[in-house]
């Protein structure tokens, strides 16, 4: 199924909800990992909105992506509690270790890096989240260990049929 048809299907399924646009966009992103540009006219048509309105919503919210992300997304918390426990140094380390800045993906397509402003894990700062798993009291050493586990994990997965 192409993106246009898939988006049409999802939007049709959810359009009964009042103010359905966010649930529709989340469902598309859950399915495809991002919201491709050809999904936008499809969603607009089903929800009786203009393409500009849909595009405006996609671009307003930080968690909607218009490009594919890496296989794993690392969300690193930049908020005050984590800063009080050294997240600025961690952030610098993470960027240099991965060789990318925020909103970028490593060249091998493995990891994307995103800033986040609070994960609600402030009692054990600094925090980061890989996909949906939160990690507490992350030091640079702990991050490097985590990276090895992540890369191991993904290389084993890649060799499986």
């Amino acid at each position: 199924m192409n993106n246009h048809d898939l988006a049409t299907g999802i939007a049709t399924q959810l359009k009964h909800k009042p103010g359905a646009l966010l649930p529709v966009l989340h469902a598309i992103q859950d399915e495809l990992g991002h919201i491709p540009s050809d999904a936008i006219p499809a969603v607009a048509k089903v929800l009786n909105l203009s393409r500009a309105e849909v595009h405006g919503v996609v671009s307003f919210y930080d968690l909607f992506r218009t490009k594919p992300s890496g296989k794993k997304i690392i969300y690193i918390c930049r908020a005050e509690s984590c800063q009080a426990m050294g997240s600025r140094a961690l952030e610098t380390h993470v960027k240099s270790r991965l060789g990318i800045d925020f909103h970028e993906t490593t060249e091998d397509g493995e990891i994307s890096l995103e800033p986040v402003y609070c994960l609600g894990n402030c009692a054990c700062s600094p925090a980061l989240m890989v996909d949906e798993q939160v990690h507490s009291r992350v030091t640079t050493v702990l991050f490097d260990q985590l990276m090895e586990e992540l890369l191991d994990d993904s290389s084993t997965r890649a060799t499986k049929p």
Partner: protein
Amino acid sequence: MTKVFIPSDTTARSLNADAVAVAVGALGEDIELVRTGSRGLYWLEPLLEIETSDGRIGFPNVSVESVHALFAEGIPTLEHEKCLGLVEQHQWLGHKRLTCARLGIIDPLSLTDYLDHDGFTGLAAALKMTPQEIVGEVTASGLRGRGGAAFPTGIKWQTVLDTQSEQKYIVCNADEGDSGTFVDRMLMEGDPLRLIEGMAIAALAVSATIGYVYVRAEYPQAIATLQRAVEIAEGAGYIGKSINGSEQAFHLEVRKAAGSYICGEETAMLESLEGKRGVVRYRPPLPAIKGLFGQPTVVNNLVSLATVPDILAKGAHNYAKIGKDRSKGTLTVQLAGNIKRAGLLEVPFGITLREILEDFGGGSFSGRPIKAVQAGGPLGTYMPETEFDTSMDYEAFKDIGAMLGHGGLVAFDDTVDLAEMAQFAMEFCAIESCGKCTPCRIGSVRGVEVIERIRAGENADENRILLKDLCDTMIEGSLCALGGMAPLPVLSVMEKFPDEL
């Protein structure tokens, strides 16, 4: 069969609680393993608890490796060297918990557990009352909005009750975006039925038939747990076509946000729920009169709604007698940042900030002096040590130009660069501004630039005057609290830490 409890909340799981649970499950002992929420004694997590005839005993910081040693001679007892004693007697649980009473105690998705711990007794009381009586109870309790604005909840409900409309809504604001706050997450993960009960009571009070919980997307576990709890409550007939057998329906839906801080502002949140960009609305009209889809809407913070069942179950008077002056009841303090013992406290209003930081928090995590505390999230002021004796209540904080907000406290030791933190406040505002009003959208960007210049020593004195002017413009001219309050941390650094900025 001995009951063993291991928390399964996000923070406990980030500290390996799942692996500990697996290890305990594999022991082969005569054990019934229960996964609970967290009590919020986070420096002790994973905190394993064992039921005894005297109450639950606790074993802190359990790891997969330590499980075998702990259970080497069977089920460990109070005499075990690693035991911290009866958990209920812990200092942090010394004040009777109300809103957080079931956290860490029950299985969040067990209806039986919930009912065994006085669940749905508030709803039962409300079902015997008229809408006006329910609103009267909430008003008499003195409950004020726990999201930060501290507006009396009963008065808000009264406005919605008095506004005639065929369709009314209850909206729960669970877009907990302030750094240093996590009680909404804990309640959703640890006692979600309580929120559902509170919303059902609100629905009865104002005759609303549809409710939404707007949860931030950064809380995937909270969303999943709450969604499951809604299904359970609906399946058992507490909400849905009928609120527990009454003639009123109440359909509740959990909506996932998408990473925008400004959507914690109530009108931006309503826009988002309507499927639009989270842009702030002009007020008036108030959401209580024209809210979601233009209809009268109760918009309350999650903690406010989760407190309502207790007020209805035990009476307004019981709640109002706790606290200080006009700050009635309990405050859920979330202690975070550079602090030795971080976590959730529920205490009556009126305790001092110093008691929280020193007696409960045990000083900084680094062991260095605490230089500043940011209270009330990223828009709150930085408080110096000279203000630590301030009473934790809405009026005392207001008197010194600070705010309690949602109850978050972030401690910083003396290595903090407060000029950098002031710059960050403006940077955060620039990133999160919805863009509708100029003072916030442009002012925050200019704010970052001016602070950069002051820090670089470029015309510092003149730029300080300019920065103060800019802050005044943002405070006076912004449409909502984001632009209107982002200057507060900046000004507090300039005024209270003059050597820094």
